[in-house]
């Protein structure tokens, strides 16, 4: 998700001062490193200016005076300074670089840790892409600011100050002439930078459009071919690249004009120095070395001045980045442990929803005055249309969210009196779309219980029916599952996430059944694994499979945030109401799938609606 640039602009101006103080605050733990690099950089730029002054002395006292021994003495200073300077340069680049990396590390870790504590509600309103951009590019920008940005700033300042100092020391009248040029160069530089940056922003914008066009035309290439749209698409794309050409070309020639403009102003300064200096030379006011020194100082001064405009532009960006980072780290988790929250040791017991009302951001209630009493060990099947509130009930039961009104009790106690860890470490959840992490099969299963032995892992896999396909992998349990588990089929992923839940030995089991169809054998395995998990455990299942529904102790038809019908399979069928319609449709659909002669083994396929 590419960030919108106009949006970023708006972010810039606000609270800059406070944000800046917070950014500087990031350096506090590393103050020693900061101090040392600041000292180093001051020394380096001081030595830089000293080089020029030494050259002046070499020319005036050594060469012009024809004093060979003085020449050698000064040159040996010069050589020594080169070596000294190299050491300092090494020191400051290293210090700054490491500091930058360290701040980057700190920021990323801080954000990541905070993200772990944030509630699901934060994730539901914040796109993953946005968060990713904060942790990656924004942390880069901010750490660049506090390392290289500060370096540039300090270097520029000391460079200008020392140069000016030496110039005034050599000849204050000439120095004054040079000082006249400084505001002009600054002004020109800032104007150029502004235009160039704006132009580059245009370039970036068009560039992301170009990438989008490629993406769309390549993914949709079959439609393009079928509709013979090639010529028109090429024409449209050529317009885009035409705009890109204009924007990029403009950005390039603006940049190409920038340096010569600054140099021209420097040349005017040089011309003036020559004029005045040549006139003074006749009177003995300026030496050859002095002229040479001035030329050097003027040339070197131009760099930091024209660079300052860039640094300030980058600083603005970095501050905007920092604001976004702080907005992330300042977000307060909505579901958090209460004071004096306890771990009761177990959460087995009846679960009660009492007058529970819940709504997400939009304030439109998803659950309204919802009441439900689940006895220990019961299996509750939730059915009903999408958006009816099934997932919300499950999310509340897991305490991913908390009721806005009403109470949820576990074993008679309001569950907000327990710690989050106490509840969530004892709940086993299997999601509709199984999520696996890169790593081996074993690592993914062990996620359920970190101290599980290999034997226990295999045991769980056997229970879930995953063992057989796992050992067929080349590396067995050590087979990598790929990014997001992409090396595995959907059915295999489901079985592994089931194994993971079994290994966790949960006291409450929550499952959002997958709707995507898998082959009959895998389906049967999943069913069996689920049965094992639900045995003797309080379970909530958002059910799609008939067998699951029928096996439940109680079926809840959830519609518009309320229980429309409740009872066992038989009771509800007899009712000939909503459940009846739902069931018959699902029955036809599922049977068609099961009996599909193309799926192979049509005749022998077991009918899961046993």
């Amino acid at each position: 998700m590419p960030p919108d640039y106009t949006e970023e602009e708006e972010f810039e101006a606000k609270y800059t001062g406070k944000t800046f103080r917070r950014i500087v605050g990031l350096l506090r733990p590393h103050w020693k490193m900061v101090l040392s690099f600041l000292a180093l950089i001051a020394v380096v730029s001081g030595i830089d200016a000293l080089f020029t002054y030494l050259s002046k002395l070499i020319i005036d006292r050594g060469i012009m005076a024809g004093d060979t021994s003085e020449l050698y003495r000064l040159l040996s200073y010069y050589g020594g300074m080169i070596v000294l300077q190299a050491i300092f340069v090494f020191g400051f680049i290293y210090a700054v670089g490491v500091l930058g990396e360290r701040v980057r590390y700190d920021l990323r870790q801080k954000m990541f840790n905070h993200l772990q504590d944030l509630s699901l509600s934060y994730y539901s309103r914040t796109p993953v892409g946005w968060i990713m951009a904060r942790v990656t590019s924004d942390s880069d920008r901010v750490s660049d600011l506090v390392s290289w940005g500060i370096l540039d700033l300090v270097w520029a300042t000391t460079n200008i100050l020392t140069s000016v100092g030496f110039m005034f020391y050599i000849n204050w009248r000439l120095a004054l002439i040079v000082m006249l040029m400084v505001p002009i160069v600054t002004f020109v530089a800032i104007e150029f930078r502004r235009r160039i940056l704006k132009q580059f922003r245009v370039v970036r914008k068009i560039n992301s459009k170009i990438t989008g066009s490629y993406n769309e035309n390549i993914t949709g290439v079959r439609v393009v071919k079928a509709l013979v749209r090639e010529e028109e698409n090429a024409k449209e794309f050529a317009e885009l690249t035409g705009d890109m050409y204009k924007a990029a070309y403009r950005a390039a020639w603006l940049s190409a004009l920038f340096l010569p403009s600054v140099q021209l102003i420097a040349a005017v300064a040089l011309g003036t120095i020559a004029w005045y200096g040549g006139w003074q030379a006749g009177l003995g006011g300026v030496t050859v070395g002095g002229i040479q020194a001035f030329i050097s100082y003027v040339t070197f001064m131009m760099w930091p001045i024209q660079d300052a405009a860039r640094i300030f532009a980058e600083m603005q960006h970095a501050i905007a980045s920092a604001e976004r980072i702080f907005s992330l780290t300042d977000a307060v988790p909505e579901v958090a442990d209460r004071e004096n929250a306890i771990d009761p040791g177990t959460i087995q017991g009846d679960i009660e929803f009492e007058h529970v009302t819940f709504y997400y951001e939009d304030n439109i209630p998803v659950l309204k005055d919802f009441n439900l009493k689940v006895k220990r060990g019961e299996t509750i099947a939730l059915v009903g249309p999408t958006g009816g509130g099934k997932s919300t009930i499950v999310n509340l039961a897991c305490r991913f969210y908390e009721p806005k009104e009403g109470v949820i009790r576990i074993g008679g106690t309001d569950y907000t009196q327990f710690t989050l860890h106490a509840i969530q470490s004892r709940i086993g959840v299997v999601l509709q779309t199984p999520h696996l992490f890169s790593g081996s099969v074993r690592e993914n299963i062990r996620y359920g219980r970190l101290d599980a032995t290999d034997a226990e892992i295999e045991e769980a896999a056997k229970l879930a029916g995953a063992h057989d396909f796992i050992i067929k992998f080349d590396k067995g349990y050590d087979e990598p599952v790929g990014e997001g588990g992409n090396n595995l089929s959907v059915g295999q992923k489901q079985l592994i996430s089931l194994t993971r839940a079994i290994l966790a030995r949960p006291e409450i089991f929550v499952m959002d059944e997958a709707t995507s169809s898998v082959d009959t054998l895998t389906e049967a395995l999943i069913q069996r694994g689920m049965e094992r998990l639900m045995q003797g455990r309080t379970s909530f299942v958002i059910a799609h499979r008939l067998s699951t529904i029928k096996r439940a102790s109680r079926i809840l038809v959830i519609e518009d945030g309320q229980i429309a019908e409740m009872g066992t399979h038989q009771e509800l069928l007899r009712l000939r109401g909503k459940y009846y319609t739902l069931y018959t449709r699902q029955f036809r659909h599922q049977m068609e799938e099961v009996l599909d002669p193309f799926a192979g083994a049509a005749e022998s396929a077991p009918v899961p609606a046993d």
Partner: protein
Amino acid sequence: MSISASVLNFDLKKTAVSNRLKGLWRMMSGFRWHYLGATLSLGVAALAKTSTYLLLSYFVDHYFGNGTRPVALPLIALGFVGLAMVEGGFSFLSGRLTAQTAEGITRRLRNYLFDHIQHLTYTYHDKTQTGELIQRCTSDVDAVRRFFADQAIGVGRIILLFTINFVAILNLHPRLGLVSIIAVPFVVVTSAFFFRRVSKAYQAFQEQDAILTTTLQENLSGVRVVKAFARQAFEKEKFERENWEKFLRGKKLTRMHSLFWPASDILCGAQLMVGYIVGALMVIHGEITIGTFLAYLGLVGWIIWPMRNLGRLIVQTSTGMVSFGRVSDIIKQEREPLDEGETLPAADLRGELTFENVGFHYEEGSPVLQEISFHCRPGQAVALLGSTGSGKTTLVNLLPRFYEYTSGRILLDGVELKRYSRRYLRQQIGIVEQEPFLFSRTIKENITYGVGRDVPQAEIEAAAKAAAIHDVILAFPDGYDTLVGEKGVTLSGGQKQRVAIARTLLKNPRILILDDSTSSVDTETEAEIRDALDTLMRNRTTFIIAHRIQSIMNADLILVLDKGRVVQRGVHEELVAQDGIYRQIYEIQTRIEAELEKEITNAS
């Protein structure tokens, strides 16, 4: 700055040669004079810079020495400004010309790739990953752009600076010239060596960055799993590990940078020192003037400092070449000719089709279709029934010549299919997929996409009404101008399909291909889609790819496919009377109802 059409339309196919330098040279076709101009301008700018130092030398000798003063001071001052103007003007000119070249080449390359890719065959797209292609079209193209914009011209600039200033110093005094280049080879070698290693360290750093990003991304998208198992601490530790590794690699990269700059500083400094000593002694011994010495000091700087960058540029140039190679790989692919084929038939297509022993394979020895023979009259509906991988989709893909059949022949209106051009065929064939691909444009643009003419709003709405999507569209915030996709509304599968139906109605093809292979669960929209499809099928030869019997009972010909062969054929009544897969499927429906009845009775 406008670029002539002939330059823009230069066929880049010619750049796909094995010698990359030759390829890059051909890539510059039409821009070579610009680039030459850019290089020459750089030369002039460098000459002006060198002259500035010579003017300085003249100035110092005549105004600080005891020489005569033939040139007035104001003139000298003006001279400095004038030279700066020449230098600035020409380096600006060079920048402009370089930008014209680089951006012009990139523009042409982008256009070419875009058009080239959409003309590549189905087979190529089947086996190529989208992400990979996009990467080559964006970052690799950008690397080629940088090659022309920064690297090639940068190397040229350094060489010019070196040559001009070296010659100038030789003219000042041959001995000075010789001592001023002692360090040059060392500097170049050191920098090339360093940047090679730096780019390796950078790659390691980038790899770790990718790992860290993946870890983060997986954590974020799996946040429910993390919370469900209360694994926050574990995740923090995992991230910390990867994060720390990135810090370490970053530190290593920093160390290399911090070693390179002072090391090359010392080399350059030593060079300057040597020049200093030799030059200074020459002044003292009266071999050269102080002005000459000062000019020398200035000039030698322009020889030595740019050399530090040469190594970096050389390393970068080589990555630019690699990128060019990757782009060339795409350019090398053969296009699928759209217009190859006999002239168009005079009359409208009737839509009569005959398959005679048609076979198709991607690779020799593993046939996808075998001995397919059937005949259908204009306006008839042919249904293809079969499992995934039975060859149904491949069979219909032969009609628009997305794939070329490898044996037998297909006759359309009595003429061999291969004698029609692809463009003509595709204009005559409409395809409606189960979940069609829509573009991130407005709904209106999606409906008129590929129609190839300006369609009046009334006609669009009529098509949308016939496709039973008009009311849905009106309910959107911007009606027909609502954007589809990420930045706009998300359409359901059924809605997308109806948009595609409207699109196909406008296109008004003679032959229709309908993909109906998976059933949509939502019964209400199913009925609407069915009506819309019926409208669409009227008077068109139609191929229906189906998985279930309901949608194809009325077809004029049903072909049951299995493993690329027709195993059963006929109309519904005939097939139901035969023993076979078709009857099995049909019977299943009856069986399901019976089972359901039993279920309900049991429950009551």
